[in-house]
């Protein structure tokens, strides 16, 4: 098992290096002189010279990359041009908010997606299966920022049940935190619930037609036991992997959800950085989310390896 993990760990090194090169290369896509683009409104020669010096823009590109990656390896993702705060610090400030949102979204998705998928598979071909499938496809087709707007209109504006926007730290006021986060988490979890539902359904269908389930039924095991002890447990293996992989997608989905509900998280940070032309922050967020995605991928692989004894053979 250890050999497998080590091999996977070594295997991600080239990917990480390429991701870093790619994120660095983003800067080269800036139209015209990067120093001018980074300077934004403050185009006085002093600021431009400072940026050119700071990012070593006069040096060849591989030298620039060398300095940049050396900083990244020491946890230095640069300094925000607009706020003068280190990018790492900015990410560390905003990330807990997004992680809370993503965790709540994943819990909601699991609570909706897995029972719906299992039920749909058990009742295959019935109207219930059809309704579940259409609901799942609708969940995948609805843009989450629009769903957010609709929910604000209904729940906040018309019914006045929950606040439309804002954020309160769970350490200051946990109840208010829950009130502000539950609606965005539901919005963010919808598409994931739909994905979970579809995967649970297909995994359950596969397991329900497998030999060991047929044998269990032939032995006279009660249907409820067949479904819960034999089918459901095994069908959950791929779903766990997908859940882990989807966590990375939730970080991306949070960009829009946080924008709609004005939540000061990681997603809103990248949008603000884009409009402030704070390219160091944009690069830092892209690099960080890619690395998080790679790590989650690795964890999903490991979870699959631990949960599924067949691939260990």
């Amino acid at each position: 098992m250890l050999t497998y993990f080590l091999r996977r760990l070594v295997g991600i090194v080239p990917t990480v290096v390429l991701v870093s090169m790619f994120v660095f290369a983003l800067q080269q896509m800036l139209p015209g002189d990067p120093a001018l683009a980074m300077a934004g409104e403050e185009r006085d020669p002093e600021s431009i010279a400072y940026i050119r010096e700071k990012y070593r823009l006069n040096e060849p590109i591989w030298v620039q990359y060398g300095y940049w990656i050396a900083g990244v390896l020491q946890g230095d993702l640069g300094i925000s041009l607009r706020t003068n705060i280190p990018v790492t610090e900015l990410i560390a400030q905003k990330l807990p908010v997004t992680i809370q949102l993503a965790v709540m979204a994943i819990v909601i998705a699991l609570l909706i997606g897995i029972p719906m998928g299992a039920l749909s598979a058990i009742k295959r071909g019935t109207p219930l299966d059809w309704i579940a499938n259409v609901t799942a496809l609708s969940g995948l087709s609805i843009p989450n920022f629009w769903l957010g707007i609709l929910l604000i209109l209904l729940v906040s504006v018309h019914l006045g049940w929950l606040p439309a926007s804002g954020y309160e730290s769970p350490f200051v006021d946990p109840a208010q935190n829950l009130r502000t986060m539950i609606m965005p988490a539901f919005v963010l979890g919808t598409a994931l619930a739909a994905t979970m539902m579809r995967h649970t359904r297909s995994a359950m269908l596969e397991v329900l037609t497998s030999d060991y389930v047929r044998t269990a039924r032939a032995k006279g095991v009660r249907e409820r036991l067949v479904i819960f002890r034999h089918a459901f447990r095994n069908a959950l293996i791929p779903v766990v992997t997908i859940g882990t992989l989807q966590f990375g997608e939730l970080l991306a989905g949070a960009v829009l959800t946080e924008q709609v509900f004005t939540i000061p998280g990681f997603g809103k940070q990248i949008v603000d950085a884009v409009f402030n032309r704070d390219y160091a922050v944009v690069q830092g967020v892209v690099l960080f989310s890619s690395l998080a995605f790679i790590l989650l991928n690795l964890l999903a692989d490991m979870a699959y390896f631990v949960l599924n004894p067949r691939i260990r053979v």
Partner: protein
Amino acid sequence: MTDLAQRVPTVLGVQIRSRAGRRLLRHRGALFGGSLVAFFVVMALAAPLFATHDPMATDWAAVRKAPSWAHVMGTDEIGRDVYSRFVWGARTSLMAGVVSVVFALAVGVPFGVLAGYVGGWTDVVISRCTEALLSCPFLILAIAFAAFLGPSLTNAMIAIGLSAAPIFVRLARGQTLSVKAEDYVDGARAVGLTHPRIVLRYIVPNIFPPLLVQATLTIATAIIAEASLSFLGLGQQPPDPSWGSMLSIAKNFMTHAPWMSIWPGVGIFLVVFGFNLFGDGLRDALDPRGD
């Protein structure tokens, strides 16, 4: 021998395609999805005929008016007709979806086929780069590209296309690897056909069906991505209409003009739902296990 090597896959291909076509026509979901898409395509192409007003014309006497006979979907914050902007917005959304996927195919498929067919170091390099690009969440990657390229619809389409290209590289590579191992490709090689001819005549036509399914489903993703970028202000720029930018403005008037928030979202939902249904049906129809 050359004749046989050429005829076998072609005959098989035609049979498979006609069977898939029949299955597609029997698939109710695909038919419904296809009809939804067709409706929006017609509306987008014939936008000047469908629209009742100039989508850019402002009317200060009709600011934020609720739906009425004069304006069936109401008016926006500067008195523009929401219905006419909705119709023209369909054109932007569909164009963005199709153009970015065509761009992704044009970038992704040649690299994927090259990796799968040539193998060796070419495959290693292309696969590693694809993995690196796939490790960044789709929307964050699109936002990053759009941010560095600058906000505009064209750049948003390039950004979405570049972000979606790795999906096609991976798919084309996998399919090429499996088609390359087929007997008819060996046959073509044995009779001395050149590599480019083998690729164009035998590999590309046979990897096409799964690429078509993926392209249909990716159009749905691309339409949502364009709407998302426009919603964030990185796609279609005002005053040109797009469903995403209409929603971006509408969110500031949710309490006073809720109708502004409804229709662009309905449009995105229906067209994406249509593409997803059609894509699912197409996948079922092209699945040989369907026989």
